[in-house]
């Protein structure tokens, strides 16, 4: 009986929520009039779901609040082997896809599941420097992605500069904009910092939309030169990549090349971040996250510390942007809206701020997860031909966020690894590590 009341209450709440959204559906009839089409069965289904769901939750044994250990031992060798196996899988992914799906089917698996996920892994690793290490909440990270993309798009279409020169330039330009954003927000903390970075992201997008003479506005910049294999274009002609290596021409060559390019860029981001963490600059970022005032009392110029974090995070965003432009061959402001910033931040938060492996796993889960919804076409046989699983993408991401914040509020990987140790390094528990002031 005790379990029934909460279940009934849940059902009532579900009824309240479902009544306006689910039960009342408006439609147009033949005379173009708005008619109300009630769907009581749907509402009852939602109520039943809430009722029995709550009942089932109540039947579960109560969760014991477990005391979080301040430290846990270094991951055992087994975890390292899993990480190595994962890296091997990533390195061989295009060939596995080719082997199992054939040349025509592999395109989707390499492009949508490989390149797409790796772009977000790289972006999230870049943002992880700012949010995870330095503890500065940046809601406008996509601005640097846009700067990188437009840098390559404009330099290549206007001046014919090659991708390999544009790539570092895009990173430098984005870093420059990162510093430019850094200056006004140096004094801001917390919510204020978040709002100003959010505004910065929007400013960049709106400037790209309205500065038509340079950026061609909403129409975007098309026919951006494709990437070449160090000068060899991926074309069918006699000067192409396939002809040079004596291969039969296939569009998959370019995709596989792009896959390894973004993999290399992402691994570079990871390598640099991991190395910087063990250098004074990285320790200063983490110290800034832990206590800014103590940093200043120890002679750390927090202005410089913040600016380097912004600049480095922005630089990797710029690299990813240049890659995005060369992969798509087309950029427009609509690719750089707030949803992108929110997605990247969600990946960082879900993965565990400051953790490289956790962030990579979260990118696979969120981006790969929403891509894999496309594969669920068989659900149409159950829910009817109008059912489109991809429409439920944000709903599922939201549910995942709510579930994570309940069960693992600090993300997939909660612990922090010390950057230096005298003996056996042990992971530091999440309850000790601060989240930064922004």
């Amino acid at each position, binding site marked *: 009986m005790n379990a029934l009341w909460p279940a009934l209450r849940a059902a009532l709440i579900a009824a309240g929520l479902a009544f306006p959204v689910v039960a009342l559906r408006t439609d147009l009839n033949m005379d173009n009039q708005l008619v109300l089409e009630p769907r009581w069965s749907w509402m009852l289904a939602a109520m039943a779901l809430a009722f029995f769901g709550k009942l089932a939750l109540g039947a579960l044994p109560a969760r014991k609040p477990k005391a979080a250990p301040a*430290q846990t031992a270094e991951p055992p060798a087994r975890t390292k082997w899993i990480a190595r196996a994962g890296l091997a899988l990533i390195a061989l992914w295009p060939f596995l896809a080719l082997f199992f799906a054939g040349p025509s089917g592999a395109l989707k698996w390499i492009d949508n599941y490989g390149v797409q996920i790796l772009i977000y892994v790289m972006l999230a690793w870049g943002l992880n420097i700012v949010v995870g290490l330095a503890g500065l909440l940046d809601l406008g990270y996509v601005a640097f992605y846009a700067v990188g993309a437009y840098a390559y798009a404009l330099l290549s279409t206007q001046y014919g500069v090659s991708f390999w020169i544009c790539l570092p330039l895009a990173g430098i330009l984005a870093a420059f904009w990162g510093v430019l954003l850094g200056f006004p927000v140096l004094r801001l903390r917390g919510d204020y910092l978040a709002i100003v970075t959010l505004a910065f992201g929007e400013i960049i997008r709106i400037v790209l939309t309205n500065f038509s003479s340079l950026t061609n506005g909403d129409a975007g910049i098309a026919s951006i030169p494709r990437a070449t294999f160090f000068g060899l274009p991926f074309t069918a002609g006699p000067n192409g990549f396939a002809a040079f290596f004596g291969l039969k021409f296939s569009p998959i060559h370019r995709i596989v090349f792009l896959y390894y390019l973004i993999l290399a860029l992402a691994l570079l981001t990871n390598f640099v971040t991991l190395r910087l963490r063990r250098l004074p600059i990285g320790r200063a970022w983490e110290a800034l996250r832990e206590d800014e005032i103590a940093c200043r009392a*120890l002679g750390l110029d927090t202005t410089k510390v913040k600016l380097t974090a912004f600049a480095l995070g922005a630089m990797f965003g710029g690299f990813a942007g240049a890659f995005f432009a060369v992969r798509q061959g087309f950029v427009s402001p609509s690719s750089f809206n707030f949803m992108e910033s929110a997605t990247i931040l969600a990946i960082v938060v879900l993965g565990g701020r400051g953790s490289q492996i956790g962030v990579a796993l979260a990118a696979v889960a969120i981006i790969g997860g929403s891509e894999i919804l496309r594969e669920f076409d068989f659900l149409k046989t159950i829910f009817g031909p109008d059912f489109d699983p991809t429409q439920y993408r944000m709903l599922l991401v939201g549910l995942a966020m709510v579930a994570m914040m309940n069960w693992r509020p600090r993300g997939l990987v909660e612990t922090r690894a010390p950057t230096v140790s005298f003996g056996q390094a042990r992971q530091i528990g999440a309850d000790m590590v601060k989240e930064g002031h922004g």
Partner: protein
Amino acid sequence: MTALLRVEHLTMRFGGLTAVNDVSFEARRGEITALIGPNGAGKTTVFNCITGFYKPTAGRIAMAPQGALDTAAIDALTRSGARGRNGLFLLERMPDHEIARKAHVARTFQNIRLFSGMTALENLVVAQHEPLMSASGFSLLGLAGAPRYRRAERAALDKARAWLERIQLIDRADDPAGALPYGDQRRLEIARAMCADPALLCLDEPAAGLNPRESADLTALLRAIRDEHDASLLLIEHDMSVVMDVSDHVVVLDYGRKIADGAPAAVRADPAVIAAYLGVPDDEVAAIEQEIGA
């Protein structure tokens, strides 16, 4: 003993409230100077002015980390408008991090401010940011793993190890600072400040919350810092046994004004201090109560 810090006519106002009113004193090299006074006397405000966390409303704070304070040189520096030169600094003109880095004034906080999610060892390494940063050559040499950076890092770790041994925390070097007991955190914060190579170490209530045994350990540590590490100390303290035991020179503040300045024994006998801080004799309290009609 020559002075290394000279505070002159320091005044700090917050709106209508004058927290520090025309306070002047000196801290001498190789000495432990104590700043005492009742709650709200302005001690921490003086600290915050010296360490640059507040910009004083008026007054001059001169600091000579290595050399001697020379009045003519201070006046010349004041007129020049510069922040510091030739090893002489005017702290009221400098931002907080420069005071720590250039004028070599380090501090601890009343409410401990350790990097709680970093290990004890990491805390001490962060404090050595400046030498490590210059050895890492804008992080590029460090990224490349240059021998110069590795040498600097080894030296920093050696220094951290020496301090951890000194404060008996070497066994907990790899534990997060936030997981240490309170007394250990206090000692670790002092060690962290010492890793920044200060000429003047400012301690804000280092004995607060310590038991008598820990207080005795702390007193020994402060003496060792003074005698072995060529650092002078300026401390705010409420624990009179610690103050009288360890300090060479005591400055007493009350309501933002300096009311006494001298050797511990002289200050303890000063009637103004007894009245303001150490406690007014009971018969005087009765007299005052009668006066105000309580």
